[in-house]
């Protein structure tokens, strides 16, 4: 079952690439696959016994001499992250289909491939396999941004890939050392390690991927130059690979170094949280705000994880899902605004609420969830995280609470700058409201957010 969840998009990607379909048809095929994947995921969830640890395992030896195997399976949290992946990817594919991207076969194939790779990351139970999926994500992203991205895409992609690869190569080194010293690369069979260098190697990869301050040099350019749907996946889902890595590998396998470095990591996470929030507060366009806010949110999630408490870790998972949905929606909306105005810079925007109730409602709702208004799932996540990290020291929680205020400031600024005040110079009166098809992309995401807001315990209890 797990393998099917990974393989379906990958196989579909191959089919899309190889069959000489017109671009549209490829898109439709991709979308159908994605929807099937969602259904598959729902089936998996329905049959999942939370609280039983690793389930739905598939294990086949890959090569024996170093003890590497193809081993996948689901924990509760991986299931949620995988769900986030399929949902956001589906929306992204839908967006791409609607945007009618040039070279649709290539594009949709890459999106499907990306989807499969990410699901793979969230299910991998073997270190090398994890690395494989972790890196495989980069391949489509690189092309997706590099080919279909904005004017400064080339630079953005190079920075992004080299930055992340530098991190993950350190992880590869760490994997080698860890696996050989343990005698197996299986995450299930291996014990814990107290080697700080190996720990730091893993941490480096995840710190870049998340990103945690100060490893976010790639962030803004990548998010700004990507096609909106890719940015959605990138910030919504790909960054969560770091969360999975931290939970499954760093926290699980390195208890002693984690203890030793806890304060340092918390400090970096907190700095990232505040730093990202402050920069978001003055960032000049929708995407930069969302980008820096993602960084801040990842800092927050890291705070939760390294609080080393149930509250914090569960909160981090809730927040991962919440942030994934929120930021994906925001990027898709940014894309929709851009197609109408040709810009996402606040200088040219404003007053879009007038006469565009759907856009206003949708953006407002998303923004409100994004700033973690109490009662939202993002609030639930943040609350748990901060409650958890309070246990590690009240100062962390105070910083986090302060960041919540900052989040309110930058998110409101975003909402106002797009929707409110007089019409911006790039907003033409005939720029239409969201079309039904566009609504069909974002409303399900928002619906999920609202559903989870009514019942965040669905996730937080079942991690």
């Amino acid at each position, binding site marked *: 079952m797990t393998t099917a969840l990974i393989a379906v998009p990958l196989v579909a990607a191959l089919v899309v*690439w190889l069959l000489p379909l017109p671009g549209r048809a490829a898109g439709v095929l991709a979308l159908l696959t994605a929807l099937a994947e969602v259904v598959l995921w729902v089936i998996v969830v329905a049959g999942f016994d939370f609280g039983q640890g690793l389930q739905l395992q598939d294990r086949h*030896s*890959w*090569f*024996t*001499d*170093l003890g*590497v195997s193809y081993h996948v399976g689901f924990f509760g949290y991986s299931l949620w992250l995988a769900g986030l992946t399929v949902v956001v990817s589906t929306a992204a594919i839908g967006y791409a289909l609607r945007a009618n991207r040039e*070279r649709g076969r290539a594009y949709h194939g890459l999106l499907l491939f990306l989807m499969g790779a990410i699901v793979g990351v969230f299910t991998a139970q073997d270190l*090398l396999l994890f*690395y*494989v*999926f972790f*890196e*495989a994500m*980069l*391949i489509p992203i*690189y*092309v997706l941004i*590099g*080919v279909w991205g904005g004017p400064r*895409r*080339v630079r953005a*992609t*190079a920075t992004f*890939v*080299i930055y992340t*690869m*530098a991190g993950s*190569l*350190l992880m*590869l*080194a760490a994997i*080698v*050392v860890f*696996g*050989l010293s343990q005698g197996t690369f299986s995450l299930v069979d291996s014990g814990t390690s107290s080697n700080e260098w190996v720990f730091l190697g893993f941490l480096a990869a995840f710190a870049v991927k998340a990103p945690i301050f100060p490893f976010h040099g790639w962030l803004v350019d990548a998010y700004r130059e990507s096609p909106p749907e890719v940015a959605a996946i990138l910030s919504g889902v790909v960054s969560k690979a770091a969360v999975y890595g931290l939970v499954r590998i760093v926290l699980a396998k390195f208890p002693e170094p984690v203890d030793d470095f806890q304060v340092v990591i918390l400090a970096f996470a907190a700095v990232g949280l505040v730093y990202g929030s402050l920069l978001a507060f003055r960032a000049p366009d929708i995407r930069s705000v969302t980008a820096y806010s993602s960084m801040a949110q990842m800092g927050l999630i890291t705070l939760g994880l390294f609080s080393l408490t149930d509250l914090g870790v569960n909160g981090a998972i809730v927040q991962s899902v919440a942030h994934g949905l929120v930021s994906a929606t925001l990027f898709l909306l940014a894309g929709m605004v851009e197609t109408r105005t040709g810009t996402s810079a606040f200088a040219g925007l404003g007053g879009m609420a007038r006469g565009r109730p759907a856009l206003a409602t949708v953006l407002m709702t998303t923004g409100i969830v994004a700033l973690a208004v109490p009662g939202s799932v993002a609030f639930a996540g943040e609350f748990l995280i901060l409650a958890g990290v309070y246990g590690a020291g009240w100062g962390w929680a105070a910083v986090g609470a302060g960041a919540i205020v900052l989040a309110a400031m930058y998110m409101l600024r975003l909402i106002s700058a797009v929707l409110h005040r007089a019409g911006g110079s790039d907003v033409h009166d005939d720029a239409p409201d969201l079309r039904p098809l566009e609504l069909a992309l974002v409303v399900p995401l928002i619906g999920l957010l609202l559903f989870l807001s009514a019942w965040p315990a669905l996730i937080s209890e079942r991690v």
Partner: protein
Amino acid sequence: MITTPKVDWLALSPTLALLGASGVALLGSVLVPWWGRRAFTAFAAFAGFVTAGVLAAIVFDRSAESRLLIAESFTRDRLGALAAIIIAGAGALTVLVSWGENRRDHAGEYYALLAAAGAGMAFFVTAGNLMTLFLGLEWFSIALYILCALDTHRETSLEAGLKYLIVGGFGSAVLLFGSALVYGATGELGFSQIAAVGDTENVLLLAGLAMLIAGLGFKSSAAPFHMWTPDVYEGAPTSVTGFMAAATKVAALVLTLRILVVAFPDQEHLWTIAIAVLACVSLAVSNLAALVQRNVKRLLAYSSVSHAGFMLIAVAANSALGGRALLYYLIPYGAVSIGAFAVVAARERELAAPVTLDNLGGMGWERPFLGAAMWVFMLGAMGMPLTGGLLGKFYVFSAAYEAGLWWLIVAGVIATAISLYYYLGVIRALYMRPAAELKPALVGGSPPRDPLLQSAVFISLVVTVGSFFFVQPLIDLARDAAGGLPF
């Protein structure tokens, strides 16, 4: 009455098959009328490589025990056989790639020399003493010198040939002098006999060893002995470059491993470090230098130096795992090299100009298959998932860790990170050039389809990707091959 020694024909058969093919091709290039010459000789060479590959596989199968033959002048073991298989495969693919070159002059000689070079390499990897080593080296080197310069109408080809010849001759001379010193120190030429003397403190031996390492480093183009590589790779006919990148490296590295492990076990503490340092220097120099290259062949040349660095890490590990790592690494690496140079060749033919990153622009979309293949080859060279390149690096790092050479892992990691920039540069050129740049000067419209080249690319692709998924069988082969060495 001189009784000639009993010759193990099977052990020699891959070499002989290629030699035979070379001879046939040579005759063909004289006897067959001009219109059938290319087809005949190419087929002969192809058949020779395939036969050699098959024979080498048989040798592999039947050589569970390593044996020294004819006064220990050569070895029948799985290491040599596996290397011969890879070399034969590379050669066969090269024949496919070169078919479309439509060589007007010396087509027959080209294939004859290719087969001869292949034969030399297949023999070289089994060499059992310093003399056969030197001779085997010269055998394929001289063939390659000629192949490099074969496009005599092109100045760069001649320049490449001369540079290769002279620098190569210099390297051989160093190797030879080193051999002489080792011989002087031990009185023996055979690898195992040298080891048996076991005179660890003998300075003559050490000086000889240093020179041997230099000579072999030259052939595997390890920095700082690599400087000829970019020039020669750029100047040589592209199919030859591919063959050199893939096959020569196999030959040189396998023999480096063999001689160091077999002949110098007592000097291990010296040569492991020396090789490790060479690996490091190779990684650093090649990856940095490649950053600013615009010519794709040159870029790939630096890339091959970089890979030599990685493989030397495996050699430096001086362990069974290291041997396995080296042999495994060679498989995807060989496929990537042949494939990448094949794509470059295809582009070269349609542009009739040297391929640079600029005129690669948009190729990914115009030639979807070749573009996608090049993409995969670059991923393979980077060591990205879904290609054996990743697992090659993984094995190499594992070997380094096991040998306690953790700093080599760090070096490898940094080098890989740097290398991304230029590999991605190729992908960028293939796919991401803005529309304005998508106007390469095509000569005479779309070139004829070249199914042979494409099949070569396809096979390379299959090997590159397949070596990722089917690791176990390949690793078993590598294990058996490396198992014959006395680690």
